C-alpha cells in the first residue's frame, strides 16, 4: 500500500459516507442530510487545521507559534467544557487551570525527559492528544461532583455540622467523582491492543511506520492520556471544592441543570 493518501483516494473514501447515508435512506432514519453535512464539515475543518498546522510547524518556524497553538487549544477546550456543563460553576477558569496543569505535567515529562524531541511537529499533536482525550473526563468529573454535592446536600451538611472542614466533608464525593471520571479511561487503557487498535498507532502504521515503533509511540500516548486525565480531573475536583464552599465552611447554593 502507498504510504500517503492522494486527493483521489480521499474522494474515493467518500463512498463510505455514501454507504452511511444509504443505510439511513434505506432504513428511513432521515439522517442522510446530517451525515453528509457532518462529513463535509469534518473534512473542511481538518483541511483548515491541516493548512494552519503546515504553517505553524513548518521547518524553520519558531516554536513559539506551536506554543501559541497549544494555548489556543486549551482556551477552546475550556470554553467547550463550559458549554457542555453550564451547571458547573466556574468551569471555564477551572478547566483552564486543569488543562494548564496537565500540560505542565505531561509535556514536562515527555519533553523535559526527552521522550520526544521538542519541536512543533511533536508539541502540537501531543498537546492535542492531551487536551482532546482528557476533556470528556474533565467535564464528567466537574458535573459528577456538582451533582453529588447538590443531591447529597443533607449528608454534606451533616458532615459540616459535625465540625468537619469543607475539604474533609467533600472528600467522599470528590473520590466518587474522580473514580467515575477515570474509570472509562482505565478500561480503555486495559483494552488497548486486544479489543481495538488506537488511532495514533493505526495512523502511524498506515503512514508506513514499523509496527513496533508505532506501538511504542502509542504506549507513550496512552500513558500521556492517563496522566492528563488524572491531572485535569483532580484539579477540577479540588478547585470546585474551593469554589463551592465558603471560607467559613458552608456549602453554597448549587443550581440544577434545569436552571440553565
Amino acid at each position: 500500500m502507498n504510504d500517503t493518501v492522494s486527493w483521489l483516494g480521499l474522494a474515493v473514501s467518500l463512498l463510505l459516507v455514501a454507504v452511511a447515508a444509504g443505510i439511513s435512506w434505506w432504513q428511513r432514519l432521515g439522517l442522510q442530510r446530517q451525515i453528509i453535512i457532518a462529513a463535509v464539515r469534518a473534512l473542511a475543518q481538518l483541511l483548515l487545521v491541516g493548512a494552519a498546522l503546515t504553517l505553524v510547524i513548518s521547518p524553520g518556524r519558531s516554536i513559539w507559534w506551536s506554543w501559541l497553538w497549544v494555548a489556543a487549544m486549551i482556551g477552546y477546550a475550556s470554553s467547550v467544557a463550559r458549554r457542555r456543563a453550564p451547571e458547573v460553576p466556574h468551569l471555564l477558569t477551572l478547566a483552564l487551570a486543569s488543562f494548564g496543569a496537565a500540560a505542565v505535567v505531561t509535556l514536562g515529562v515527555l519533553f523535559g525527559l526527552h521522550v520526544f524531541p521538542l519541536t512543533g511537529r511533536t508539541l502540537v499533536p501531543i498537546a492535542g492528544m492531551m487536551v482532546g482525550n482528557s476533556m470528556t473526563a474533565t467535564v464528567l468529573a466537574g458535573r459528577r461532583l456538582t451533582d453529588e454535592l447538590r443531591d447529597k446536600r443533607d449528608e454534606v451538611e451533616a458532615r459540616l455540622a459535625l465540625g468537619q472542614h469543607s475539604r474533609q466533608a467533600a472528600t467522599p464525593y470528590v473520590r466518587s467523582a474522580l473514580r467515575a471520571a477515570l474509570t472509562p479511561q482505565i478500561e480503555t487503557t486495559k483494552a488497548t491492543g486486544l479489543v481495538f487498535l488506537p488511532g495514533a498507532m493505526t495512523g502511524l502504521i498506515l503512514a508506513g511506520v514499523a509496527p513496533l515503533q508505532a506501538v511504542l509511540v502509542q504506549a507513550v500516548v496512552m500513558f500521556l492520556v492517563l496522566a492528563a486525565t488524572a491531572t485535569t480531573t483532580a484539579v477540577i475536583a479540588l478547585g470546585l471544592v474551593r469554589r463551592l464552599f465558603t471560607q467559613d465552611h458552608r456549602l453554597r447554593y448549587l443550581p440544577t441543570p434545569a436552571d440553565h
Partner: protein
Amino acid sequence: MAFEFQRLTVLRAGRRVLEEITATIPAAGITVVAGPSGAGKTTLLRLCNRLEIPDEGTVSYRGRPMDELDPLTLRRRVGMVFQRPTPFPGSVADNLAVAHPEATTGELSTALTRVALDSGLLGQDARSLSGGELQRMCLARTLVTRPETLLLDEPTSALDARPKQVFENTARDLAGQGITIIWVTHDDAQAARVADRIYQLREGHLARAAEGTGP
C-alpha cells in the same frame, strides 16, 4: 445565655424568612421553638450552627458574636440533628467515627448507650437500622463531639409513637446532664411534653409563648 439574636433578618428569593428577630435563648434545659411549617424554624437553627449566616443582624453564642468564633470549633460545641436522618455509608461505628476519628470503641459504645442504643449495634450497617434507631444514631454521632448545645430540627417528625417517646426521654436525660437543647417542632403536644420553655415562631417573628410543663 446560650444564644442572643439581634435584629436577625434572613431573605430568600426576595422573601423575608426571618424578620428582625431580637431574642435570647437561655442555656438551661430544653427550649422549644414551635410554629407552623415554613415559619423559618429550620433557618433559625441553621443560623445557630452557622450552616447559614443572616442577611442582617447578629447571632451571639455565649456572649460572643458568631463571626468571631471559629466555625469548625463552634459546630463541635453546638451539635445539630436534622429532620431526616443522614446516615453515612458504612457501619454505625464508621458513622460515629466521622465525628471523632480517634475515638476509642469504648467512647463510641458510651455514645450509643447515652441515646438508649445497644453498643452491640456498632458493627451493624447503619442503613439497616430502623427510623427511630437511625435518628438516635445521628444523635449519638453528634454527642461524640461532646457538644455543650444540641440543635434538634424536628427529629421525631417521621417516627411512630414509641420511638418518638424514646427519643424525647433521651433528650430529657441529656438536658439533665447539662446539655442545652433547642428543639424545633410543629407538634404542640410534643412541645408541651418536652419543653422547659416555648417560643413561637410565626411569619418570621419569634416570641416567648409559655413555660413548658416538661416530662
